[in-house]
């Protein structure tokens, strides 16, 4: 079919000679190339109409808008999105040392250390947590302070390197803005530098908020999210390139429509899932089984916004009711590792709760962790409760004086403090924010 061919094979001409619509079509990602969407069908009909000879237009005194004008106006609107240089100072890059595994010691508490250069490309595969990325935009390079609780957490992680993951299932809890996501980021960075395989999920709520397509699995009550699985497989592949090239599958497997021979490298296995999104779920399951079975490389499963795993999702079942995460195959796979039902031979599961959206709050998780006490008459979901057993809560406190001083000096060097930086100002900000990291940042940077 001619129109289908035109849809995929758009030549890479320079910007001015392509129309807006053809450029948009060229930007369609590979996964969608095989889709026949409604607009493509209608477009084909429109094209048939266009093939008919046009009536000759009368010449007009007004110059008609052509494709070149569209390109020019696009460039102009893009320029307006840049910050006005008169009012916004460009960030002064601050010199910070790298946060390598050996620097997570008690002596370094209060020092602000940046992410190592070999870790930053891996971290940029997945987005930073939403509110932290605001800080990282203001001061470059992205760096976090080493805290006492960080050192304790990383000691636990290092100790778990040789033990099964079911023995180390930690959940970071604490007040809103107390540094849970930041600590999780530091753990991820630490493990990446130490040579672990890391599966980092910065926003688990996007898995459950009905933003990805889902399909029924025949002869079962489960549902699969092909595009989500494929995206996750791609992220894992890009983050752990060097680690995965050394590992191979231990047995033959069938993923979707493809067969994977025994002895294929795990990178090749993941590439199958990236190219074919409908095989991605099977790829994920085989991958997790293989990573769990081998003992050379420990695996870290890091999940932010874990509370969305312990409450009904926004997806609807066939009968119209909201379904639990256990009925979605990809979240169920991770729930098995979080609850300890499945275990990696060497590794750990670290998660962080998030208070960012009220809709994500999970009372079941808070009761299971012991951070909240409810009336015994309160009915909690008995289908979700069993998944939350055996989790260890790690309380993340506010800044101590020492940590806050280190952060304040870092902000001073990065030139983001709203008022003139001084010792009394530091005391003022520290006391009024009670050491809460997020409030301390907004107090220093915005003068609130």
């Amino acid at each position: 079919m001619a129109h289908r061919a035109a849809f995929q094979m758009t030549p890479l001409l320079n910007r001015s000679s392509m129309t807006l619509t053809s450029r948009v079509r060229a930007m369609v990602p590979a996964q969608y190339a095989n889709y026949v969407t409604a607009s493509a069908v209608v477009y084909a009909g429109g094209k048939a109409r266009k093939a008919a000879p046009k009536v000759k237009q009368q010449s007009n005194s007004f110059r008609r808008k052509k494709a070149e004008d569209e390109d020019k106006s696009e460039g102009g609107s893009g320029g307006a999105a840049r910050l006005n240089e008169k009012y916004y100072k460009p960030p002064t890059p601050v010199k910070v040392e790298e946060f390598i595994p050996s620097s997570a010691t008690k002596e370094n508490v209060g020092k602000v250390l940046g992410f190592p250069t070999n870790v930053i490309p891996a971290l940029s595969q997945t987005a930073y947590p939403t509110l932290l990325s605001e800080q990282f935009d203001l001061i470059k390079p992205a760096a976090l302070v080493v805290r006492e609780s960080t050192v304790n957490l990383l000691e636990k992680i290092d100790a778990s390197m040789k033990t099964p993951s079911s023995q180390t299932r930690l959940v970071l809890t604490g007040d809103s803005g107390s540094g849970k996501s930041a600590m999780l980021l530091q753990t991820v960075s630490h493990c990446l530098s130490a040579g672990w395989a890391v599966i980092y999920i910065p926003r688990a709520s996007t898995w459950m908020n009905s933003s990805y397509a889902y399909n029924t699995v025949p002869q079962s009550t489960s549902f699969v999210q092909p595009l989500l699985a494929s995206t996750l497989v791609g992220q894992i592949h890009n983050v752990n390139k060097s680690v995965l090239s050394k590992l191979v599958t231990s047995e033959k497997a069938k993923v979707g429509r493809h067969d994977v021979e025994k002895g294929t490298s795990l990178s090749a296995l993941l590439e199958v899932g990236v190219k074919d999104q409908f095989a991605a779920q099977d790829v994920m399951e085989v991958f997790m089984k293989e990573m769990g079975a081998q003992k050379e490389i420990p695996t870290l499963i890091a999940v932010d916004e874990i509370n969305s795993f312990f409450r009904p999702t926004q997806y609807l079942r066939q009968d119209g009711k909201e379904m639990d995460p256990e009925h979605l195959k990809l979240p169920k796979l991770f729930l098995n590792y979080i609850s300890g039902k499945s275990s990696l031979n060497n590794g750990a599961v670290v998660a962080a709760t998030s208070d960012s959206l009220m809709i994500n709050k999970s009372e079941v998780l808070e009761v299971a962790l012991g951070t909240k006490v409810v009336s015994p008459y309160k009915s909690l979901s008995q289908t979700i409760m069993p998944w939350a057993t055996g989790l260890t809560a790690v309380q993340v406190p506010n800044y101590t004086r020492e940590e806050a001083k280190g952060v304040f000096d870092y902000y001073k060097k990065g030139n983001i403090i709203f008022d003139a930086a001084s010792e009394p100002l530091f005391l003022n900000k520290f006391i009024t924010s009670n050491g809460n990291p997020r409030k301390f940042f907004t107090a220093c940077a915005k003068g609130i």
Partner: protein
Amino acid sequence: MLHLLGVNLPDQKLVQYALPLFYGIGQKTALKVLASLSIHKSCKIADLSDTQINQLSSLLSDMTIESDLRKEIRANIMHHRSIGSYVGRRHAMGLPVRGQNTKNNAMTARRLNGRWLKAEKREYSSSARSVIPEANSPFDNFFNRKWF
């Protein structure tokens, strides 16, 4: 622009908010349709695959919507009129049907009631099936006149 069962659904609209553009589908039925077809809530009309569009059109054609629904509503009101009930008379006069006060505040009823009968009159005015009872028969004229 997806053209489905006589209604144009814009491509960039979410399916959840495009389905109520059909006469007879509101927010709740739209969600029920999404649930039965396993379409996620942030799916746009442009993201629907061919199979999903076919499933959607077959599901919608099984429901009474659009012209079928309008015929049903009109038939229900016509039934009241043809049996000469109080409800039918109120529809014909364009006044409140459900026992509301008319001393004040009957504006919505005056504006909206009776439009189904007017449509009926317009539609069937030229057909032989017109069974609207008029008070013009000789029998009525004799008995409804004031003789004394």
